[in-house]
């Protein structure tokens, strides 16, 4: 008997807790850095993006109304699940061109980030909230709330680590997200989705697309039901496009260059401020 035949995984999208192919039925034939493997990756369309946004919007109320403690536990659960899939992720990073040590260290740091951000979920509020000493008989206080649906164009460099750190900083406060994973290195996208899928993250809270950035860039910024867009990268033309189209609905727009991403730990909870809104509430004080 010959060895058992290897079952290859079909690389699909992750939308609303399901793993569909692109509605466009397109794919990209991705070749590993050592030319040893060709893998077909789903190539998301604009319609896939719109569908994802609709699901992210639908998931928002439930997610933001969960307790912060619960959201922290779910993100911690993602760390647990990633730990158990460490070898798989390392293998995928190596296929993408990383040397073994670097790949291992990236996956380990990514797990650390998940643990780090899990801890922020029920703490950042106390750092950024305040009671305002107003000069009238009123109780006035200010607390952060999630901005809403956030679209993310993920980085190409150290993509697993930085995608996960940006993603964690977004969802921990109750936002939902639609990601376009690195076009150059799409393999970990599906593994990440599988980790998310088995971590009690409700369907629709995180949606992960793979495909071509140039096809989706404008839509990530211009969609009227997206509240914030985060762009990771250095391409000036792309940055300008993102900034321009985000004005159609006064979208919060954040450009994260490599040095911003490297600074993640030093930024601590300030990364969370990108996708929260401060709400001030007033009430009279009296008998």
């Amino acid at each position, binding site marked *: 008997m010959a060895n058992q035949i290897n079952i290859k995984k079909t690389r699909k999208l992750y939308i609303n807790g399901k793993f569909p192919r692109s509605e466009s039925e397109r794919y990209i034939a991705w070749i590993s850095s050592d030319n040893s493997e060709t893998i077909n990756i789903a190539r998301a369309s604009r319609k896939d993006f719109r569908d994802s946004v609709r699901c992210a919007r639908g998931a928002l109320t439930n997610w933001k109304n969960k307790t912060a403690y619960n959201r922290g536990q779910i993100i911690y659960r993602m760390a647990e699940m990633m730990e158990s899939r460490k070898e798989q992720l390392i293998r995928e990073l190596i296929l993408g061109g990383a040397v073994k040590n670097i790949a291992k260290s990236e996956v380990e740091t990514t797990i650390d980030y998940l643990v780090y951000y899990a801890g922020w979920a029920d703490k950042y509020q106390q*750092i950024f909230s*305040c009671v*305002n*000493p*107003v*000069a*009238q008989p*009123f109780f*006035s206080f*200010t607390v952060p*709330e999630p*901005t809403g649906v956030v679209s993310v164009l993920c980085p190409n460099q150290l993509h697993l680590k930085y995608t996960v750190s940006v993603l964690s900083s977004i969802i921990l406060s109750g936002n939902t997200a639609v990601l376009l994973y690195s076009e150059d290195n799409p393999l970990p996208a599906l593994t990440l989705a599988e980790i998310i899928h088995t971590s009690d993250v409700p369907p629709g809270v995180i949606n992960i697309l793979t495909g071509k950035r140039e096809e989706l860039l404008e839509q990530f910024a211009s969609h009227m039901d997206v*509240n914030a867009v985060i762009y990771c990268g250095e391409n*000036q033309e792309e*940055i*300008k*496009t*993102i*900034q*321009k189209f*985000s*004005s*159609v*609905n*006064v979208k*919060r*727009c954040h450009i994260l260059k490599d040095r911003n991403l490297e600074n993640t730990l030093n*930024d*601590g909870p*300030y990364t969370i*401020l990108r996708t929260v*809104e*401060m*709400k*001030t*509430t*007033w*009430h*009279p004080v009296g008998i």
Partner: protein
Amino acid sequence: MNKLLKDQSKERWEYSPALESTDHIQLKEKYDLFINGEFCPSESEKYFETINPANEKVIAQVAYASNKDVIRAVSSAKNSYNKYWSKLKPSERGKYIFRIARLIADRAREFAVIETIDGGKPIRESKQVDVPLAAAHFFYYAGWSDKLQFAFHGKTHNPLGVAGQIIPWNFPLLMAAWKIAPALAAGNTVVLKPAETTPLTAMKLAEVIQEADLPPGTVNIIPGDGETGKNLVQNPEINKIAFTGSTEIGKFIQSSLAGSSVKYTLELGGKAANIIFRDAPIDQSVEGIVNSIFFNQGHVCCAGSRLFIQEGIEGEIIDKLKYRMESLILGDPLDKNTDIGAINSKAQLERIDHYVRIGQEEGGKIFQSSCSIPDKGYWFPPTLFTEVSQSHKIVQKEIFGPVLAIQTFRTPKEVINKANNTPYGLSGGIWTDKGSKIFKISKEIQAGVVWANTFNKFDPSSPFGGYKESGIGREGGLQGLLPYVSLD
């Protein structure tokens, strides 16, 4: 038939005029630009008239800042930033800002009268709200100057450089204070463009800044129109733009800054929902509605222009509201008894008229206070619409006038859906005696400021700003410093 209204015609009180005196104020016939610590004519040699909207008389000629003037102002701000302001010890920087606060308070009456003459708002409001809050803003932020390291734990902060600031005509002095005070405290220098129809208190503020002896160029004030604002936004030497105004212009600014590294904050339009539950204290709610929509003739971005009343009490609330509207005194803004002053400009009056006409055409039922309207000036009576729904223009569009659109609702879920069904998210109101309901509903309203059992309250220590298309960033409080620093 509304019994309250019927009775009211018998018992209406007449008030004798109680005019605020104007003899102590100093107004020049001509105001020049304030650049580099001095008043100087515009390079364009152009002047425009600013008029009193209550009698259409010209108050003064004001220099119009051309692009050359913008360039001059920005370079003087940059020069001051490099030479003086960024080199100053933070505690000393604070002392200059404290001086401004004190000098505004000294001249409070003068500021109030000019604000009322130039903008049309009742003297009671300019005296009790605009001017004291403006002074308080400078006082509050002055104290932050040497405490910034404690505002941003674990980070080092740096000023941005030159802040270009564009403000609207509804709270001219107060908006100048909201903009200038945190910018200076954080170590930036300023070029401020006041609104075309209300430049005078900003020019008086320039006098105060000169009197406070700030290093030349630290604050520059250059009146002008949209073109001036555009030139300021597009000036390559600017590091930060702070804008308060319409969502339409806000989007234009955001788009035109694409590709640059200029930081910006936008405080834009609103269409706030004011929600009255069945268990609300009725009389307080009615006062709250009046304050939410008729304060400053409704020229308030956070005005409660959409009223939602829970079914069962709409009859009582609307009757009492109409009664209260009939007792509002519309007239000379300088009269201390006046509740409703003049509409800020002819253009704004036309805009309000336009929307009210559409409201009627679309089938809304209108009620207006029967107050008499002066012959001269721009006026609009307190107005409410019933029998309107979510799809009506007057429910969707920001009118920026004393026009209230009333709808009813049955369940909290329904009213939350309706309240949030707008691209705006600046403010909201809730009226109920039940504490748990306040926390639930205030959390669900997508807006930057929520007033519970009150409305239109402001304080320098209290952050203000919008969700969604109502803007980006906060003004006031510790959060109001963040837009004026970069963190490392």
